[in-house]
């Protein structure tokens, strides 16, 4: 059960990470095309908007896998000095704080997205609606919660996971 949960979260994290990577490549292509077209006298209108939208996907979707890989910055010199039991308790507390934080942010992104639908806010040039971004980021925040839960599971029941 534990392994199924962990491997499912990992696979979703990797998928989101791959989407983020693909969008980063797309961002580069669009920017390059815009530079070329601009020098030919006909720039792509709204490139800044497209890049900004893409940027949110790149960063938002790569958050869970970054957490899975423990690539965030944290201070560990005091934690390292604790006994294994204290270290474990501290990890459980900090994971729970992270889960609550991202669940809260994810929920509020949904509310923000619904607000954007109601106010029909769109980008100035392309008239692209803004609301998919908060919904996408919300999805990523909930996946981040699952990733932190997976980390919590690994902390409480270490070993045995493939």
């Amino acid at each position, binding site marked *: 059960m534990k392994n199924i949960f962990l491997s499912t979260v990992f696979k979703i994290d990797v998928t989101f*990470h791959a989407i*983020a*990577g693909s969008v*980063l*490549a797309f*961002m*580069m292509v669009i*920017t*390059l095309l*815009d*530079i070329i077209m601009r020098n030919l006298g006909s720039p792509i209108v709204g490139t*800044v908007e497209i*890049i*900004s*939208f*893409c*940027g*949110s996907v*790149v*960063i*938002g979707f*790569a*958050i869970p*896998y*970054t*957490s899975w*890989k423990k*690539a*965030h*910055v*944290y*201070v*560990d*010199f*005091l*934690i390292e000095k604790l006994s294994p039991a204290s270290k474990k308790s*501290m*990890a459980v*507390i*900090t994971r729970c*704080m*992270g889960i609550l*934080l991202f669940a*809260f*942010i994810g929920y*509020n*992104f949904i*509310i*923000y997205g619904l607000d954007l639908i109601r106010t029909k806010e769109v980008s100035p040039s392309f008239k692209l609606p803004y609301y998919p*971004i*908060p919904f996408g*980021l919300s999805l990523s925040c909930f996946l981040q919660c699952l990733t932190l839960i997976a980390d919590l599971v690994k902390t409480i029941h270490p070993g045995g996971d493939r």
Partner: protein
Amino acid sequence: MNEVMVGLIGLAVLLGLFLTGIELSFCMTLVGFIGFAYLNSFSSAANLVVKDFFDTFTSYGYTVIPLFVLMGQIASNSDIAKRLYMAAHKWVGHVPGGLAMTTIAGATIFKAMCGSTLATVATFSGIAIPEMERYGYDKRLSAGVVASVGTIGMLIPPSIVLIIYGIIVEQSIGRLFLAGIVPGLIISLFFMCIAYAWVTIKPAMAPRAEKEPWHERWRVLPDFIWVAIIFIVVIGGLMTGKFSPTEAGTIGTIAVLILAAVKRQAGFKMLVKSWDESLRTAVMTLLLIAGSVVLGHFLAITEIPFIAADWTTGLPLPRWLIMVLIIIVYLIGGSFIDDLAFMILATPIFYPAVLKLGYDPIWFGIMIGITIMIGVLIPPVAICVFIVKNITGIPFNIIYKGVLPFLLSLIACAMLLFLFPEIATFLPDLLMGK
């Protein structure tokens, strides 16, 4: 309880949370949110967090970060660094301490493509240290030089530190890049002089390598020229306003990708690795920024940054001494937390004071860059030393003995820049106007 007291308690809680091992970006967001909710309302704090995250992630300005990081990762994961090292080896390998100087020259040129300090230290630990060992170099010199040269990237463009600083304080990234060039080259020169002097005083530290014939040296010259072209296009484009920083990052990344492909080093595995590492670094950085924005909004309503600015500038001390104290705070803070994270956290607090004291923000950015360079070499969080230790297995005490002379030269350079700010500011003033 008044706002200032709430702000101070918030900062104390933040420091306490840092020690629990929670991710710094998470606790900055948490403290910012709770503090804002306490002083305003729960719903406005919830709106603030979501809006700040949304604005940070959709900011066009911040899209530059994953692009320049990717550029560096591709350069690092392909054999470009190794080729540069071997090319520099052929040119200066035969002089006293030549391989150490080769490492410094190679890393300095490599930094023109790779903004990541850690990637440079890791890359050169794998290339330069075994080569120096092969020639019988003393481990203090080989490990010390490799741990130190990675820091040069904090100043040589495209520096990620300067990009983030520029975005936080809303200064021109092109101007900051130009300001970093001369101090970066001076530090590189200082490092070379130290290696030369060390080996001249103690010749047993580094036996000489054989001299390469001139035709061999000319043969490897294109390796330098390609990097120079990429550097000139990226920095020149930024400086002349032809590219935005995001466009410069894209052009640089594509150019490095083409260079790697031409050298047949752009394999699928290398690309996946580069993409993966750059995304993780970019996410780590942007979550830190998003967290600091939330925290910054909380601190703004407590008015702590403005009170700190008034208090600092009102101290009965000469302004240079106040600046020294600010730099020492960065140094101490960065020694306990991650240096980049501390810069993101502290800059919005100290920046108003720096402006009020009448210092040039571009110069301050370069001073912060050098301070971080020193910070990544001193304990307890001497990340560059940790990497060399992890990759080579050389004990800490030997690496630290090797780092010490280079560290002293960094401090000397910081003092020089402090006394003569024009070292940093004259180039941007000359090429981009005052």
